[in-house]
């Protein structure tokens, strides 16, 4: 039985249902609205596991589910050497999100990550501590800033309402996911001009570490009209 993990609620779940439905596979929740149980119609040998989107990468990396739908950002943030454990099967063309760095809009002197670095040095001199960047994507942001050779900053953990941290004086800049930029704008923030740290979208992944014996991936890929991924 192939275990397919999909996000358990919200827009991401609905879009995932629609994506599979368009390919002749009906996924549906069963029981009450609050019960996390689901069924699959249109193909045999697949069972559905509803999970929080953030847990899906970990479950795939541990081999507890065979397939999973989640964002590329989640996979890269949560799993080290992800390419060895997980393989992308299909980009699903929804759930688009860019991981970006944003600064207060009135910082007219900051356009690029190079400016941010220069400001970090001046900020530390002026305020006596390293400039704070609020994020929940610690690994991705740190690796990006390290590659870019940025110094004199610190990452502050923010698991939600990250855009509010600047006005609340708990951070000087933020690194977060954005789709339309509306939340940034509403919070008087502006993204750096260098482009996103990562452009993410919902993606169907396959686990390389799961036990695939007794699973007919080929058949499922045939029904979905996808190429069979190399999971050896």
């Amino acid at each position, binding site marked *: 039985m192939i275990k397919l993990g999909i996000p358990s609620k919200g827009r991401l779940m609905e879009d995932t249902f629609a994506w599979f439905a368009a390919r002749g596979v009906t996924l549906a929740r069963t029981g009450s609205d609050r019960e996390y149980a689901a069924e699959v119609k249109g193909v045999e040998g697949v069972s559905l596991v509803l999970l929080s989107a953030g847990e899906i990468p970990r479950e795939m990396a541990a081999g507890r589910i065979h397939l999973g739908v989640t964002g590329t950002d989640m996979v890269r943030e949560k799993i080290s050497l992800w390419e060895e454990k997980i393989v992308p099967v299909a980009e699903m063309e929804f759930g688009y999100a860019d991981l970006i760095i944003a600064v*207060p809009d*009135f910082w007219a002197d900051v356009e690029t990550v190079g400016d941010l670095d220069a400001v970090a040095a001046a900020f530390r001199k002026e305020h006596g501590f*390293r400039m704070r960047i609020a994020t929940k994507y610690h690994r991705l942001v*740190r690796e990006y800033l*390290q590659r*870019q*050779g940025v*110094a004199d900053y610190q990452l502050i953990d923010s698991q939600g309402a990250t855009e509010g941290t600047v*006005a609340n*004086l708990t951070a000087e800049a933020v690194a977060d996911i954005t789709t339309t930029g509306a939340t940034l704008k509403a919070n008087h923030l502006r993204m750096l001009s260098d482009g996103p740290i990562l452009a993410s979208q919902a993606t169907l992944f396959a686990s390389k570490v799961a036990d695939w014996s007794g699973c007919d991936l080929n058949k499922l890929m045939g029904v979905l009209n996808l190429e069979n991924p190399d999971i050896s």
Partner: protein
Amino acid sequence: MDRIRQETERLSRLFREAGAVSVETSVLQPSDTLLDLYGEDIRARAYVTSDPVLGEQMLRPDFTVPVVQQHMKDGAEPARYTYQGLVFRAQEAGTGRPSEYTQVGYEVFDRADPAGADAEVFSLFSKALSGFSVTAATGDIGILTAAVSGLSTTERRRDALLRHIWRPVRFRALLDRFSSTSTREVPAFNSEAPQIGLRSAVEVESRLSALRTDAEFAPLEPSELQALQAILDVSDVAPKALVELRQIAKDLPAITPALDQLETRLSSMAQRGIDVDNLNFAGAYGRTTMEYYDGFVFGFHGETGVPVATGGRYDALTKVLGQGREIPAVGGVIRPELLEVLA
């Protein structure tokens, strides 16, 4: 295991015989100091843990910082220290590198004769490793620093470059920016946008004005830029490297004192029996390692992989950790586990 313990003990004895006093440090080190020193990058490399009383702590990623702190607090001068114990480094999965390993170290705090102290540490390490098939590599961050400090440009540009000596990508980006006429349109202060956050409008305006001033300055002298690049490209046996560097100094005379220091060091090394005629020297050596080395740098490498011993001069670190005091310092560490395969 026994062999490693014996090796550790042999090195420690050698360092004590050279006049070093044994010191110990805690495994748990306050995160603040290390983060302020190394920046956020250290988080990816050190094990972070928390204590309800002590706050955020790191399993010691090196001995140098706590040893310097101890010395700056109550050490008599001059001083020589040795230590042995585990350091902890988080490694990215799949690299196969150990996340805890032994270091045996030797550190010298001495004002009298920096070149002599450099030579003392290097020749001691050379002696300690004499039975193993290792090659020495050396460099001198002080020459690079002197070169940047000597560029005929603004202090602001020199400071920006000096800050990134250890980050080649940003250093290169800054050099590129300073080498051509600025095409950047510096915007006016945006008084419409709400002023949120701790960084004030005054700070924004002050940088805008600095950017405007900077745009008016001429690009870096091509001859100086070439000289800087030439320093990074030097890679030869030490006497030849010195000749090349003396040649480069014609375009960048500010490096001359640093070259004199290199020359004195080489003759000190020769006096201590080091074959300097066959000693490798590279202008860029030590640039991508831990950023506290600011003078002489060295490493001993086997055929492949990470160096079995590394060290260098870190005068500036003692100033940062010394709360107003400072002392010239040089030292290094050997990793006994790595030596075993090279015997």
